[in-house]
């Protein structure tokens, strides 16, 4: 379910993701994300719960998906899976904890700090916003914030990854990976509240 929604977003955004990665890197990010989600989706058993589908997707991304982003997204998904398996009854809290732990793992591994212009620049501020709120989580607001944070990477000079080689010439285009993880929040919003679709932006137009 969640992974299926994420795949739908990645299919819709594929051309844009490719274009953004081309501008600052080697142009394979759209493929890496979409093909990774296709492969993961095909492996998810029918009727799988959240823990199972995210665990299946995590393993696929970690083992089979290339590029810098593939295994990083695998780490993110695996943390979500672990948290979901640990607290199957409190999905919201589990997902936030999983995303927080996953972001920490991505930062341990990738050593990117906030402001380096990577997918961390979507994950970290979006999660900061979520932790600040009391009460039940408004996933639609979270997805909207995530997309805004991702788009704001267009103003950052890259200091990590392939884009760091072109420096200021990356300015004006958002970071492909940041958009790519923002789509996960888009999928989460729809997963938690199918009625939110009309409140969400069109993933093909990010």
């Amino acid at each position, binding site marked *: 379910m969640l992974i299926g929604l994420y795949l739908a977003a990645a299919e819709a955004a594929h051309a844009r993701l490719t274009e953004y990665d081309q501008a600052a890197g080697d142009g394979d990010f759209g493929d890496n994300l979409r093909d990774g989600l296709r492969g993961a989706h095909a492996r998810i058993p029918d009727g799988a719960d959240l823990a199972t589908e995210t665990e299946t997707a995590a393993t696929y991304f*970690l083992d089979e998906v290339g590029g*810098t982003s593939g295994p*990083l997204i*695998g*780490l993110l998904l695996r943390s979500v899976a672990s948290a979901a398996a640990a607290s199957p009854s409190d999905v919201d809290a589990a997902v936030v904890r999983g995303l927080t732990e996953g972001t920490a793992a991505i930062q341990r*591994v990738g*050593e990117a700090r906030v402001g380096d212009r990577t997918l961390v620049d979507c994950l970290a501020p979006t999660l900061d916003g979520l932790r600040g709120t009391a009460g039940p989580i408004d996933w639609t607001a979270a997805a909207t914030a995530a997309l805004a944070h991702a788009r704001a990477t267009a103003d950052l000079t890259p200091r*990590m990854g*392939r884009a*760091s080689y072109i420096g200021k010439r990356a300015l004006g285009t958002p970071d492909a990976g940041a958009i790519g993880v923002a789509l996960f929040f888009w999928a989460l919003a729809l997963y938690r509240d199918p009625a939110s679709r009309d409140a969400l932006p069109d993933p093909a137009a990010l």
Partner: protein
Amino acid sequence: MAELFFVTKAEYVDRALRGFARDQRDIVRLHTAPAYVRALATNPARRVGLVAGGGSGHEPMHVGLVGAGMLDAAVPGRVFASPHNRQVYEASRSAAGPEGVLHIVKNYTGDRINFGIAAERLRHDGIPVARVLVDDDVATESTQTATGRRGTGATIVVEKLLGAAADRGTGLDALVELGRAVASRSRSIAVASAAHTSHVTGRPGFELAPNHIEYGVGIHGERARQTIPRPPLEDLVERMVDDVLANLPAGTRALVLVNGLGGTTAIELYNVFAEVEEALGRRGVAVAGSLVGTWTPALDMKGFSVTVTMLLPDDGAWTALWDAPVWTATLRKRG
């Protein structure tokens, strides 16, 4: 691909690994899907497995350094590309000792991330993991990016000393401490008079005017910040030794690696070594151990690098570790 002797009907890195494993079947075993090379003999005293890896095209690094006294496993990526984290993960699972596994990683983003992800996975499985990062190339000392100095020839020195220490039953934390100390006291600089043959285009990786050299070239064909008219070898070595020593603590004894970049002959490398030894001597540094050969090439680039590991005032048993037995495809000592 036209200009390198690679097979056309299969993946040439896999083909090379197969040939290597057949030739060295007394020392290593090749695992495929994912690809890694594993030592046949494991010292029973080892409590920590040593795993290194990186792009191919730098042979013997790392597969030629798998074996008793050095690496337990090596993980080769495609040419000049990081290995996949799954290769690292599975090689590490296979090589881990009772106290876990140590990753020796050259400072490149792809390598750091893929080794890092593998480490996350290993920890998730309950296997202790630590990392020693090698970042010796003084040519990349003060870049504007956050990437830091590249890792090059010093990797050989770090792997040798850690291999010997691991054979003495040293634990994970002490190995990390040793490895970081060795890396922090190791610096290199590389020059090239001609580019490597690109594995993608079959053409030279870059053009260089006759009688010019790249001063501070990288091992994947990254050009240097400076192209300079070629000085006589004596003067070139003086400058290289100065640049390396300027980035090291003072000392009186050193390990020295004179490394060919792939298309450089032994007779040239021994000319270089003779000059390096004398240049160090004039600066009060004696050569306590040396390696001269093609250890960390950039495919078939014409050039060489000089690595100096400055020994501690009390040596810290480093020369004993350097001289300790090792039995790999390429490096062999009886101890």
